[in-house]
């Protein structure tokens, strides 16, 4: 039984954690919240120096060629500090999409740039406030040209390219061209910038075979669900300990509020959800690494548990803080916002629960 990360992986985790604790305290997240930066540049550069974007990229494409497990530990630490960097977009979604569906030429072109932090990629699927379905996606690709509108797109304003869902296919489109208009939009989480992308006869190319978009997206989301789960586990743990620390030092009626069962049991519930999420995330990581048959089921379980854990911890962290936790000055808000963005960005829990049961039915039928 070896259901844990290796010592090397733990060392990498500590290294990243140390870097982020030093360079990405929550005041950096606040700077992005209140300012106009696309993301925290120096944090991103540091992560690039540590090799994070290249962790999952094979050595032949300029990456470190490490396993998904190494990327999972990075995700957890980045999630823990709610780092305002294009990790979820570039390192997870775009990189994994290329690995999954890219032609050799596409991989040769983009993966080394992604690994070196010289390109930022993103994924664009939604077209407004509705779950994209084959019947409602209006963005079209044909004759090498892409037309349509995608919103919200995380990091779209600074991304080098986007992987775009066009009807039933994925296409890769470089964003610095005149067929692409980018407009920043407001969202609930100003620490992760989003935009609207409008394509007007933009030059683009298929990523993967034509008509395979939904199938590829499902596989991409399974991988992303697991990496996101680690980010959510990290964030949930941070929010829980933020609440715990406050509960130890805040006094009401002559004693620490952490001595009241209402607070104690609330935080115990945080811990319970966190450990359920962690265990499910570990299994997802293992399946991702082994390409195990349980991968789709494990991904769904990891996603559901982690979303629940982060949502709950981030909400109850504010509740534990009381009034001060609801002020703009409080650091509680970062986890609340990020939890919601991560919860919705690759489909919410309702969708994943349905998916989980479908996969369970398939497994039982097999």
């Amino acid at each position, binding site marked *: 039984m070896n259901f844990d990360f290796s010592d090397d992986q733990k060392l990498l985790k500590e290294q990243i954690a140390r870097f982020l604790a030093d360079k990405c305290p929550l005041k950096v997240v606040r700077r992005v919240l209140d300012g106009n930066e696309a993301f925290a540049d120096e944090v991103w550069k540091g992560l690039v120096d540590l090799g994070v974007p290249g962790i999952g990229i094979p050595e032949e494409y300029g990456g470190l060629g490490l396993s998904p497990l190494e990327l999972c530990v990075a995700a957890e630490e980045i999630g823990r500090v709610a780092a305002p960097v294009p990790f979820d977009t570039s390192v997870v979604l775009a990189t994994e999409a290329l690995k999954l569906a890219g032609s050799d030429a596409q991989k040769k072109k983009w993966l080394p740039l992604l690994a070196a932090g010289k390109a930022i990629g993103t994924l664009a699927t939604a077209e*407004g406030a509705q779950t994209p379905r084959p019947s409602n996606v209006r963005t079209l690709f044909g004759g090498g040209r892409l037309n349509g509108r995608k919103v919200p797109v995380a990091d779209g304003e600074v991304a080098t390219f986007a992987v775009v869902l066009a009807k039933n296919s994925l296409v890769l489109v470089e964003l610095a061209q005149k067929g692409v208009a980018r407009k920043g939009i407001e969202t*609930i989480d100003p620490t992760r910038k989003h935009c609207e992308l409008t394509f007007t006869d933009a030059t683009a190319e298929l990523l993967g075979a034509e008509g395979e978009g939904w199938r590829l997206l499902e596989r991409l989301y399974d991988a992303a669900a697991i990496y996101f789960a680690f980010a959510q586990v990290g964030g949930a743990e941070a929010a829980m300990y933020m609440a715990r620390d406050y509960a130890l030092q805040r*006094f009401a009626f002559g004693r620490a509020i952490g001595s009241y069962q*209402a607070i104690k049991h609330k935080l115990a519930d945080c811990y319970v959800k966190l450990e359920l999420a962690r265990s499910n995330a570990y299994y997802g990581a293992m399946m991702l690494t082994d390409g195990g048959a349980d991968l789709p089921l494990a991904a769904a379980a990891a996603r559901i548990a982690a979303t629940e854990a982060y949502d709950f911890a981030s909400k109850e962290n504010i509740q534990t803080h009381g009034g001060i936790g609801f002020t703009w000055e409080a650091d509680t808000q970062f986890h609340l916002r990020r939890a*919601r963005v991560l919860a*919705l*960005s690759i*489909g919410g829990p309702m969708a994943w629960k349905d998916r989980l049961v479908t996969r369970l039915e398939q497994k039982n039928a097999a």
Partner: protein
Amino acid sequence: MDFNDTPDEAAFRKEVRAWLDANATRKSDDKQSFRARNDDPELLAKAKAWQARKAEAGYARMTWPKEFGGRGATPILQVIYQQEESNYLVPLGFFDIGLGMCIPTMMAYAAPEHLKRYVKPALHGDEVWCQLFSEPAAGSDVAGIRTKAERAKMPDGGDGWVINGQKVWTSGAHYCDYGIVITRTDPGVPKHQGLTMFFLSMKTPGVEVRPIKQISGGANFNEVFFTDVAIPDSQRLGKVGEGWKVALTTLMNERLAVGLPSGGLDIDELMELARDTDLDDGPAIKNQQVRGKIADWYVQQQGLKLTRYRTLTALSKGQTPGPESSIIKIVAAPKMQDMGAFAMEIMGQGGIMKEQVPHAAGFQAQWIGGAGFRIAGGTDEILRNIVAERVLGLPSDVRVDKDIPFNQMGKK
């Protein structure tokens, strides 16, 4: 069993409606609002004008004695007035704390000449009052306040006090003229015993108001700093050391004031969203998980509305309402937070965007505002304690600080 007025109530309602028709504009539908933003100075002026007109007509505080501008009426008449007024486009909300909490406290403790001076301007909207109770280290535990008042001579040689400290979460302090403030005058006795209440002008030198920006972006609350604020002893309310008793009068009035949260998005808008929005497998409204949630929240929404009707029934019969209204915020606050979050989930990834679909920003505001509503005016936890203790008769929490002098309370 019915929702009808008694003959007297019906007659009064007719009178009110006629007066409102003559003096204000009826809303075109019940979701319309005056879009009150407390920081709009023009709005305050309008609100003051409306309050004055209302007071002149005798509708502002009908339950008050006639000598103070009221009618000595039963609470149900006041409720009927408010029900009717809510159908008109008028600016409200600036005077609730002053008239609902501060002035009643003044009536109980202030000298006759002060009442003569302050009640009428407050009732007529000329002067706005705020309540200065909470502090950074005293939220749920109001009696743990640290703002000090020490005896001092006033420049005119009279007895007075000097106040130093900080209040927080003061609604409307930035536009208020007066406030009542609870202070610690004796740190050497157990915490409930060393408090004293005062009222003061918010223009008194040394009073500084700073708005608090909330996560939601709003800034309706303030920090209020007191630096060597000198006030005469005549502004004391109640005896020295009996401030807690005075505060209880104020807070009891707060409890009476708690109503249903009104306006805002609710089941109708959620149904509309679910009808108009696709999930993976078709319109959200067809999904049984969505239907289950809608049903749960509908049952809560109706339950609260109907519970309120039970309270009004008691008022209408001239009885003391039961404790049923204590459930309102316990239910309404998490419902607000959860429903907002769920509506965002229905919208998928796009649920994070502000102002892309009709109610997106509204549901997001509920989600984020719900986190604050679960805290403001009594946290979920404090309210459950209150139900357990006052309604069910369970023992209070163990109080380790009861008999210890305030300045002996170690943190560890």
